[in-house]
């Protein structure tokens, strides 16, 4: 038998099979397993009464979307580790005090500008203080300033934003006020306030709080204007819900993610501004270790390559913190947007 005739016989058999299936419809699925066939469903009274239900949870979906972003999770770990470490570091054995001037035990001379070694991990500065301890103490100060400013911005900005957006009578007043204050650059306010008041942590926090809430208030206001007259809020009002309850139960939960995002971005901004005013010479007093003070002290020595470590270590920690917060904040905002929940 030739190959061709064998193929012809095969083809004929297949065609016959198809023909048989066409004439007898049940034969077409006779070889399918039982569970793939349709069967008539029973009518169940209890199921007909059951209401619709979805196990969608906003925060669950937000967290799931966030943890899918590997880069953001990595930076979140960085933040957690760094923040935890700023508090653990003073408790570790063998740490120097950030303000003590270290003397050589043998000669009694100050250990100035010692390059990083096993005793002073980041070296010592120009008057013999331990840079490792100072860097972490400074991070603590700067993060504290950032957190204070961010909290104030969130609370006050949200408060004003809600008033501005929800109370129609105040709308024109706040809008005019905003248009005036928004025209004044934040840096100028910062400079002016720091120039007039005594340098210190309080002054910096005050100066940064003075302008930071503007953007937040405007943002909250715009969101509230959009959602305040939606049907569910109208229904709430008709049913006699008090304004306070509408704001806290209907409006604000909608905005939590945005508020969180703005807070996470306010912290790096506050740290950056602290560095800036310290550079101008109206920031924190030099005896309070802060990232601004450390960067400023390092800057004065940067023309000598052998002393550059005094600038680079604080700068590296600073950049690590701000980049992490920025990336995590943005990733969180993306994750918190219900459009990205599938």
């Amino acid at each position, binding site marked *: 038998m030739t190959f061709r005739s064998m193929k012809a016989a095969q083809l004929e058999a297949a065609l016959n099979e198809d023909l048989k299936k066409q004439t007898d419809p049940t034969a077409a699925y006779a070889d399918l397993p039982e569970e793939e066939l349709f069967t008539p469903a029973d009518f169940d009274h209890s199921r007909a009464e059951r209401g619709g239900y979805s196990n969608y949870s906003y925060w669950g979906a937000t967290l799931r979307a966030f943890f899918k972003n590997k880069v953001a999770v990595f930076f979140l770990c960085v933040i957690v580790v760094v923040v935890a470490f700023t508090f653990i570091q003073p408790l570790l054995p063998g740490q120097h005090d950030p303000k003590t001037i270290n003397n050589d035990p043998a000669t009694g001379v100050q250990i100035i500008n010692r390059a990083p070694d096993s005793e002073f991990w980041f070296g010592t500065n120009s008057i013999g203080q331990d840079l490792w301890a100072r860097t972490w103490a400074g991070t603590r100060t700067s993060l504290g300033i950032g957190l204070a400013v961010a909290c104030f911005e969130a609370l006050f900005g949200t408060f004003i934003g809600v008033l501005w957006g929800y109370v129609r009578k105040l709308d024109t007043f706040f809008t005019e006020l905003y*248009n005036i204050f928004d025209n*004044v*650059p934040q840096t*100028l306010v910062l400079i*002016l*306030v720091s*120039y007039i008041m005594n340098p210190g942590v309080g002054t910096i926090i005050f100066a940064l709080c003075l302008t930071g809430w503007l953007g937040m208030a405007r943002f909250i206001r715009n969101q509230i204007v959009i959602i305040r007259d939606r049907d569910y809020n109208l229904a709430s009002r008709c049913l006699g819900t008090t304004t306070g309850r509408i704001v806290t139960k209907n409006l604000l939960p909608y905005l939590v993610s945005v508020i969180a995002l703005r807070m996470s971005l306010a912290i790096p901004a506050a740290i950056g501004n602290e*560095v800036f005013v310290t550079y101008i010479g109206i920031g924190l007093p030099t005896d309070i270790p802060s990232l601004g003070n450390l*960067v400023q002290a390092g800057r004065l020595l940067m023309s000598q390559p052998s002393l550059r470590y005094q600038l680079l270590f604080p700068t590296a920690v600073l950049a690590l913190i701000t980049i992490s917060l920025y990336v995590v904040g943005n990733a969180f905002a993306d994750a918190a947007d219900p459009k990205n929940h599938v």
Partner: protein
Amino acid sequence: MLKRVLHALVTLCIVIVIVFVLLRQMPIEGYFNNFDKLSDAQIKVGLQQLGLTDPLPKQVLNYFVQLLHGDLGTSNKYREGYSIAKIIAQKAPVSIQIGLISFAVSLAAGLPLGILMARSTRTRLKVWDKIGTVLIVVVQAVPSAVYHLLIQLYGSELLGVSMLFNTRSAATWILPIFSLSIGNIAYYAMWLRRYMVDEANKDYIRLARAKGVPAARISRNHVFRNAIVPLVQYIPNSILFTLMGSLYVESLYSIPGMGGLLVQVIKLQDNTMVQALVLIYAAVSVLGLLFGDLLMALVDPRISFTAKEGAR
């Protein structure tokens, strides 16, 4: 339009009053060059001569009259007895030159970067998009005070130029201008990319692509032209960026401009100089925002100031 201009003027007046009143709270040492050596009577006479013993509203009024005559007052410490207007007239040209060049550089670098990024979102590896995103994240997240410093440190080493500015040596202009531009470059690239990607997903672009119009032509004639319109909105912002950046950058590179001058007189505690310079900066930023709004109305005929501003 007229309303917007009036608005800017009112804002400016209010800002002047606030700055003036705030600076009156300063310790009076800032008005004398040799405060320690003066007797109480001399100080009193000095304050009277400066008009600082008058009631506050009268002082504010006097100051406005003085400003309208184009008189910014005289310096106390920086250059004793010198007219501030004269000092600023000397310093301003350098600042303006650097500001304009940096503005041009940021447009010339930021727009192509944004276009490259937007185009590469259509390719498989998205190389340019990734590079650009890293640049934007770093520039936005790291405080400008820090990256300006690192640019100065490593830039001067890399290019083998001096860390300090010299009007006559062209090479020393590179780093300050780069420092001032980089924030705006990232800003323009970020927004242009976003607008271009949004535009490229619109139906009429998909139709053009389906028709077989070459990608380069779609990008140039349709996507870019529409995406550039909202970008005009960011021009005032970038002017502010440059202004505020110049405070830091100018003093970092010892550029003899106005930004460096403000930092210097703050350190010297020269009250009248601080007042004059803060006012100038505030005025420039108010005008910058005004100019940006007017430009928007020019570029896009759909925007006008006669209608109520709904989005604000």
